[in-house]
């Protein structure tokens, strides 16, 4: 009788750490771990010794000392008596401001160009291709410098708008006499509230209660509209007919906002020439305008390509199938094409937003004081703390990026195709 015995159990040998695939990855990871630790220790040790040689220490207390420099464009209160930390905050807000404006404008322009590039109109298609190729293949820095040059070289001084003593009228302002583009700044209307509710202090900065009221109204509209649409869906499921909602939605969105604006006495203060300068409006520095325009035009070229690719990725059969089911063109777009196209469009779109935010650090070229200009520029030079400033700056940019890509991942997960 044949006895079937188990294969004798191999005892562990040292060479199995290398030759046995079960243990090899463990070996590799341990080796990698020690190498990385050794590298990190070497870097930290070098930094420590270098700091000692230079007689410096590593601390961030400089953030609470007086900054002593002025920032031309601030969103919240700041004087040169404020601290370096507050200057950093101003810079951060300036970065976020230009990034936000840029993302907004670039999205609108990019969608516009991308759709037009697909149009059957030969001339418009070619024009958009020229635009996209021109902006994609030339460094962003060149566009920033070029547009800045346009602003400072090719626009008139504030004086050109003056009516001369002999009665010759000066230039009139652009856009129905509301905006004045000059070689130093662009004067735009200032939104004001005559029955303002004042501001409340949030520790670091003050927030206008008017703005909060507006946001509250918008939130109210959002929830009311959602309830309305949910109700419409319920009615449709019960009866088969969907009630007409578009005018109700429109009213829900418009009425509360208008009511709040009227109640607060909203009006625009138009810029007006007094002495050598425009007053009453907001004078937006040309460095911000140039940076914003350049970032917008540059990023829009990329977004246009993304939008075009997204729409082209949806096969024609999808829209034909929707028509065969009897959907009208508008609902075909809303229910069939867009949900699929957005899935292709959104991830690269968000990464373009990230790029735009990071590219806003080129503000240094036109002297717009963003995070890099305050913390990584003047503060760094004044305090001589390169290590702290650059590390802190990197950390802040990293946090902004991670927040944006975190939002993207959440959205991506919600629209992802559910597969095996």
């Amino acid at each position, binding site marked *: 009788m044949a006895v079937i015995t188990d294969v004798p159990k191999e005892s562990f040998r040292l060479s199995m750490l290398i030759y046995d695939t079960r243990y090899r990855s463990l070996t590799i*990871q341990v080796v*990698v771990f020690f190498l990385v630790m050794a590298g990190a220790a070497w870097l930290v040790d070098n930094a420590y010794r270098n700091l000692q040689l230079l007689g410096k220490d590593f601390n961030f207390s400089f953030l609470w000392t007086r900054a002593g420099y002025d920032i031309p464009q601030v969103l919240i209160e700041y004087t040169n008596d404020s601290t370096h930390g507050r200057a950093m905050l101003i810079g951060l807000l300036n970065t976020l401001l230009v990034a936000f404006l840029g993302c907004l404008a670039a999205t609108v322009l990019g969608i516009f160009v991308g759709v037009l590039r697909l149009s059957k*109109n030969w*001339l418009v298609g070619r024009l958009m291709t020229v635009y996209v190729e021109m902006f994609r293949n030339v*460094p962003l820095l*060149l566009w920033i410098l070029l547009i800045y040059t346009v602003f400072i070289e090719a626009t008139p001084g504030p004086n050109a708008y003056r009516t001369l003593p002999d009665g010759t009228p000066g230039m009139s302002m652009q856009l129905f006499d509301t905006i004045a583009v000059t070689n130093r700044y662009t004067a735009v209307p200032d939104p004001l509230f005559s029955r303002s509710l004042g501001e409340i202090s949030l520790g670091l900065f003050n927030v206008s209660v008017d703005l909060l009221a507006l946001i509250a109204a918008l939130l109210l509209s959002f929830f009311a509209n959602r309830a309305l649409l949910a109700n419409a869906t319920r009615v449709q499921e019960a009866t088969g007919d969907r009630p007409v909602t578009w005018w109700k939605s429109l009213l829900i969105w418009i009425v509360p906002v208008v009511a709040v604006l009227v109640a607060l006495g909203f009006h625009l203060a138009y810029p007006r020439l007094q002495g050598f300068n425009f007053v009453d409006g907001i004078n937006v520095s040309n460095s911000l305008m140039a940076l914003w325009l350049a970032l917008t035009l540059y990023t829009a070229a990329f977004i246009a390509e993304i939008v075009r690719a997204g729409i082209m990725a949806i096969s024609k059969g999808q829209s034909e199938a929707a028509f065969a089911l009897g959907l009208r063109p508008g609902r075909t777009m809303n229910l069939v094409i867009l949900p699929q196209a957005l899935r292709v469009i959104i991830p690269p779109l968000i990464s373009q937003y*990230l790029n735009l935010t990071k590219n806003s650090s080129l503000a240094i070229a036109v002297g717009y004081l963003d995070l890099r200009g305050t913390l990584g520029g003047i503060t760094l030079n004044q305090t001589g703390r390169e290590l702290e400033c650059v590390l802190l700056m990197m950390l802040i940019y990293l946090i902004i*990026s991670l927040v944006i890509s975190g939002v993207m991942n959440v959205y991506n997960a919600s629209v992802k195709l559910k597969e095996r």
Partner: protein
Amino acid sequence: MTRTATFVRDQMLAPMEPPLTEKGAVKWVRENLFSGWFNSILTILGLFAIYWLVASAWPWLRNSVWTADNLAECRAVIQATWGEGATGACWAVIRERWTQFIYGFYPNHLYWRPNLAMVLMFVALAPVLFTQIPRKALWFAAVYPGLGYWLLWGGTLWFPVVALAGFAVGYAAYRALAPVNVIVAAVGAVLAPVLWWLFLAGPITGILADIVPLSLETVRSDRFGGFVLSVIIGITAISLSLPLGIALALGRQSDMFLVKSLSVVFIEFIRGVPLITLLFTASLLLNYFLPPGSNFDIILRVVIMVTLFASAYIAEVIRGGLAALPKGQYEAADALGLNYWQAQRLIILPQALKISIPGIVSSFIGLFKDTTLVVFVGLLDPLKGITDAVRASTDWKGIYWEPYIFVGTLFFIFCFGMSRYSMYLERKLKTDHR
């Protein structure tokens, strides 16, 4: 029999001409420009935009001046020819200073060296870019980095030769130790060249230079600038970041937790910060993290940082390519009994890289455009560094548009060429017949 059918045609009529509106140019215009009220409006708006652009740029271009010694002379010529108040382009600045835009402040009598280096670069790149060229030519591509370095910076020829010999030393160590044990051989192949570079390269270079003095006039890094600088940084970073990017992408796809998390941290960190901050790190912080007293060339530091930056982006592009491969490809490789590296080399990477070509090339284009940012750490890029230098002279103070247009055009040609090449490559490698 009577003929009843009197009206039967026994001859075909010649086809009639299509109506005038349905043929030739008229048809094309109707279909492509005026097919409906919306398209007609778009066409008219487009024509208006073109007219406006041409009308505002044409006088300026028509009044161009090509020979003048300074801006004032340029303006005087324009005023004299076209009347008071006329404006025009002054291309004389490009004509007089184009060498600076191309070579920076490289010594005049040595221009043949960057020229030769650029020509040889194309010779070295040819076998990489076009598969029709014999594979033996790749050897030249392998030694080109040393040769290019020697031509551009000068100094003794033995320095790059000895540096390149390090790789030969590594290979020799591998061959010598391979019979003993593969692991030992791999460790030896890494350690031997490092030891060679650290301890032997210096003395050996000195000895060889004494015996056979083969050297060119040394050019310091601060003399570099213009497009030569952009191309040096761009090409070096491109060729180094591709292998690094592949390694990072494989690391991120790896099953090993530690390797994967290190790759993720590295990639996300680099992608999360602007290139400018990394360049500042290169110029300000690198000295903190190196042993006290060590200092090395600013161009080299910038190249390292740009390479790291680009490799993180390329890693993400390649990761997309890896993820796009059907799972069956990995399983098929396993079923054939291939080990990890064989599977990657023979099955996975060729397909993944092919998918990622457009993304890789657009990363390269972005990298090349980003070389202009080196101006912020004091290097003379063609766009701002050189332009500011030209404007700083009294002759050309106040000139803005012409240098920007010139530099922008050159960048456009480079980048547009790269994107066309990627389209060619995509078409050539396309294997699915749809």
